[in-house]
């Protein structure tokens, strides 16, 4: 096992990240789960800052914590009475199937974690200088020149998603 050189701040952020992700699972109320997820997202943005990718951190806060989470909050508040109803209706899925598949996934990832330290992870043969890495200028250049067509495809996908969401969400006339 390689001795890890990790700043104390990263330990704290990682711990908060894991705990708040667990909070999403363990929270009884949907609003609490949503707030816990917001804490996880902000911690993730802190980790990105710690890695010196400020642009991604800013995007994370703006898109996730700013837009998606607000959307979730609106929908959760809209259905306030319905969340409690779940506890009264019976679960139809096979409990043991769920438990076994979840533990299978966890075991697979544990195996991967045991194998992981053997990976040569101190490779640094980057083509970019550290000063240029992850800046708005270099990412913008790559996005609009090297990755122009994927970018346009993603724009199209987003447009389709907006129109589809409007169509699905609109009230049906009967």
């Amino acid at each position, binding site marked *: 096992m390689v001795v890890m050189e990790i700043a104390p701040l990263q330990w704290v952020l990682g711990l908060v990240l*894991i705990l708040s992700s667990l909070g999403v699972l363990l929270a009884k109320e949907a609003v609490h789960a*949503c707030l816990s997820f917001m804490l996880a997202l902000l911690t993730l943005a802190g980790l990105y800052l710690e890695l010196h990718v400020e642009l*991604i951190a800013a995007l994370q806060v703006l898109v996730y914590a700013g837009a998606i989470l607000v959307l979730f909050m609106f929908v959760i508040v809209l259905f306030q009475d319905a969340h409690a109803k779940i506890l009264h209706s019976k679960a139809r899925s096979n409990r043991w199937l769920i438990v076994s598949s979840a533990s299978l996934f966890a075991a697979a990832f544990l195996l991967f974690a045991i194998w*992981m330290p053997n990976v040569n992870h101190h490779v640094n043969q980057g083509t970019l200088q550290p000063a240029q890495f992850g800046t708005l200028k270099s990412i913008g250049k790559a996005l609009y020149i090297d990755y122009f067509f994927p970018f346009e495809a993603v724009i199209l996908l987003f447009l389709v998603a907006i129109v589809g969401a409007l169509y699905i969400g609109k009230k049906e006339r009967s």
Partner: protein
Amino acid sequence: MDVTFFIFLSMAMFVIGIVGVLFKRNILIFILSIEMMLNAGNLAFVAFSKTWGDQTGLLWVFFILVVAAAEAAIGLAIVINQFRNRQVVDIDQYDELKG
């Protein structure tokens, strides 16, 4: 900078997301767990990208952000539609497509 720490974090977050998808019956928490798995992928992309000094991973993170936003919009639209028509947010009752 050690990438192993971040990959461990990302893996833990992904497993928590999978467990949420498998166990939670509230459809909103279900979608939140999917978002959490996407975020775990983002963290791995950023960590590897930083380790190898290649910013292609950051571009992938950008694309994943957009796809996650689209997915949340569609998912919540479906949730609202189903709630309006049938008053359920329980995932066991989302069985209208069952043959």
